[in-house]
């Protein structure tokens, strides 16, 4: 199992993603430069990490989406290989059309950096098999534009096909307005593609993958992917 972490100018969670997948989860990993025009053939899963690629100029993820490596990432995803976009990576995935919808400014206009609770709504995916159904996990967020929005028809399709895999929830697993940090439609925190091989999420699982941090709820995403391949 080998991960590839794409480094864009302005990525700042690339090292965390590298550390979580290698030191914490125990898999091989390498960095991929945004100007690369190919993906090594031994990579099983691409991680688009968090950060502020291209300074968030124009819109978050809008410029990164046209980096040379993104053509390869799109081809990689269309071949059914695994891609995870975390935070800015999720924004890049929506800009590139690999996932539907977009991320608006947080509804309180603030950059929010704190732990949130997520309910794992679908455990029958490549990314969540290691979680229990409706398990509540704690994962940090750190974003100014994480307010998930898509047209009603898109939201219905996502929900009907069980493609919303994480929702913001209270610690007790109950949904309420106060538990939704950014105004996302229907508390959506993470979705998968129609093919099920592309995951986008605003919270940062790589930041909670080491027990020394007091919580390692995020690591099971990396383990789930690896277990699919073994």
């Amino acid at each position, binding site marked *: 199992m080998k991960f590839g972490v794409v480094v864009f100018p302005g990525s700042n969670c690339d090292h965390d993603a590298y550390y979580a997948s290698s030191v914490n989860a125990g898999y091989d990993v390498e960095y991929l430069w945004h100007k690369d025009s190919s993906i090594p053939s031994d990579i099983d899963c691409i991680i688009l990490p968090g950060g502020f690629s291209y300074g968030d100029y124009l819109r978050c993820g809008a*410029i990164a989406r046209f980096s040379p490596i993104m053509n390869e990432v799109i081809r990689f995803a269309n071949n059914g290989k695994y891609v995870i976009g975390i935070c800015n990576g999720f924004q890049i995935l929506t800009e590139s059309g690999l996932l539907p919808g*977009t991320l608006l*400014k947080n509804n309180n*206009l603030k950059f929010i950096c704190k732990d949130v609770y997520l309910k794992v709504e679908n455990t029958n995916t490549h990314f969540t098999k290691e979680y229990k159904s409706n398990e509540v996990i704690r994962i940090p967020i750190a974003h100014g534009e994480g307010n998930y929005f898509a047209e009603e028809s898109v939201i219905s399709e996502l929900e009907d096909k069980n493609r919303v895999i994480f929702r913001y929830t209270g610690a007790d697993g109950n949904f309420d307005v106060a538990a939704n940090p950014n105004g996302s439609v229907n508390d959506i925190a993470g979705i998968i593609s129609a093919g099920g091989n592309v995951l986008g999420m605003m919270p940062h699982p790589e930041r909670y993958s080491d027990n020394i941090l007091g919580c390692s709820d995020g690591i099971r995403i990396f383990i789930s992917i690896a277990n699919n391949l073994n």
Partner: protein
Amino acid sequence: MKSYKAKINITLREGILDVQGKTVEHALHSLEYKDLSHIRIGKYVELTVIAPDEQSAVEKVSSACNQLIANPIIEDFKINIEEVTK
């Protein structure tokens, strides 16, 4: 070929809550500008385009807006184009 100046106004599509606009509106109301409302905040982009005629200039800019400059899922754009005369 001719040179055109394109002025592009990008705004959030109607029906999408503009939280920046709302916040500015509240601030204005607290400054006694009670009769100002429906504030929408957008972006302004200016660029020069070389094209054989105005229609192809608009088409080129429009295509750039759809592909990169605006996000059609949430934004509308208006292009104003004028030929640059030396």
